[in-house]
């Protein structure tokens, strides 16, 4: 069973939009997300997810973090050196998803997802990797109080 298949299994759960796997420092390693989320966006999201988990870790390691948006939910679950991230809508059956995530984290915890284009190709995204500008690219750059084009 490939890692990609494991992620796809999560989509069997009604309400799951997709999932992806990050390294501990937020590098996207594997994805099973709709085309609306380009790789560039994931590259922006990954480090923030990693920082969120790092900030949340106090005395104990975080076992799960869930974010509730108005219509969506996002679940983050550390799995060995990786972080499993699952996007769902609010209608998802949470206990079912929890079980699904437990199975996935158990499997990916011991897997290796090296960061290279070749490896990405072996774990193909279900969507074409169309480069789109990340949300921050239009932001004006400011250096010492002056706007830099």
């Amino acid at each position, binding site marked *: 069973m490939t890692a990609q298949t494991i992620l796809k299994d999560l989509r069997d759960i009604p309400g799951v939009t997709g999932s992806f796997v990050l390294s501990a420092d937020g590098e996207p390693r594997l994805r099973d997300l709709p085309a*609306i*989320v380009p790789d560039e*966006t994931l590259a*922006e*999201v990954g480090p*923030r*997810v990693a*920082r*969120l988990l790092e*900030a*949340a*870790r*106090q*005395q*104990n*390691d*975080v*076992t*799960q*973090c*869930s*974010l*509730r*948006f*108005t*219509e*969506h939910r*996002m679940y983050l679950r550390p799995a060995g050196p990786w972080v499993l991230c699952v*996007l769902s809508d*609010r209608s998802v059956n949470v206990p079912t998803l929890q079980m699904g995530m437990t199975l996935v984290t158990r499997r990916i915890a011991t897997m290796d997802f090296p960061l290279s284009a070749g490896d990405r190709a072996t774990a193909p995204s279900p969507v074409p990797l169309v480069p789109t500008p*990340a*949300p921050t690219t239009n932001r004006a750059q400011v250096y010492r109080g002056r706007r830099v084009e």
Partner: protein
Amino acid sequence: MARTLERDDSAGTGFLAQLKGLSVADLVQMNCLSGATCNVRVNSRQRTGWLHFSGGSIVHAETGNLTGDAAVLEIANWQDGTFEPSSTERSATMSVKSSWQNLLLKAAQQRDELGRDNVVPIAQRSGGTGPATTRAGAIPTSTIEERLSPSQPPPASGRQSMTSPFVRISASGRIVTSRGEVDDLSAMAAFSVHLGQMIGTHLGLDALQGLEIRAGKQRTVIAVTADGQVDAMSSEVDSELAPLIRNAGL
């Protein structure tokens, strides 16, 4: 709005008193419970309002551009000033629709909600020597937990309520109220909400309503209120977190 005034023939009887420490609510209660028919002018700072009582009810009120119920609510929330009989005029307008009891309850609720941001954090109080006050200067911090709005978790009974940290942070990052040691919790909550919002924005998701973090037996629940305030609580006891979980939609 035209105001119809007529002479109040009942004026001129009874005591003219000077009492300190009364509130407008006290005035309303006294007049209504005694079935009074009179007019009272209320002055507070630069504001003036009129309350007209008839047979134990408030029948008309006005201040500025407000009349009726809205004027009563406005006047009832004035914190200091004076009131005096305005015996020469009585309004024939019946602008007040609600009962005086209902109006006083509404005024108290409004006052609570308006003063919510003025509560001094307990953390700041702990180092002080005197009684804590609010910026508004009137409400002791011992009432903080009574002042928690329905959107906040009610303090649990027993020892747990004293040990589980809770913090409310304003949209600008100021601690509005807190319970227990919240230095780490407040920083973590504010930072996590910030990151959560960024993650949501990048992924094209809608507004962040809350987060839940599980670390060992500890659960931390963070709820983002409609006005941007952040409530956060850490506990090992699920029942303590339940109200916040409900608010955060988790």
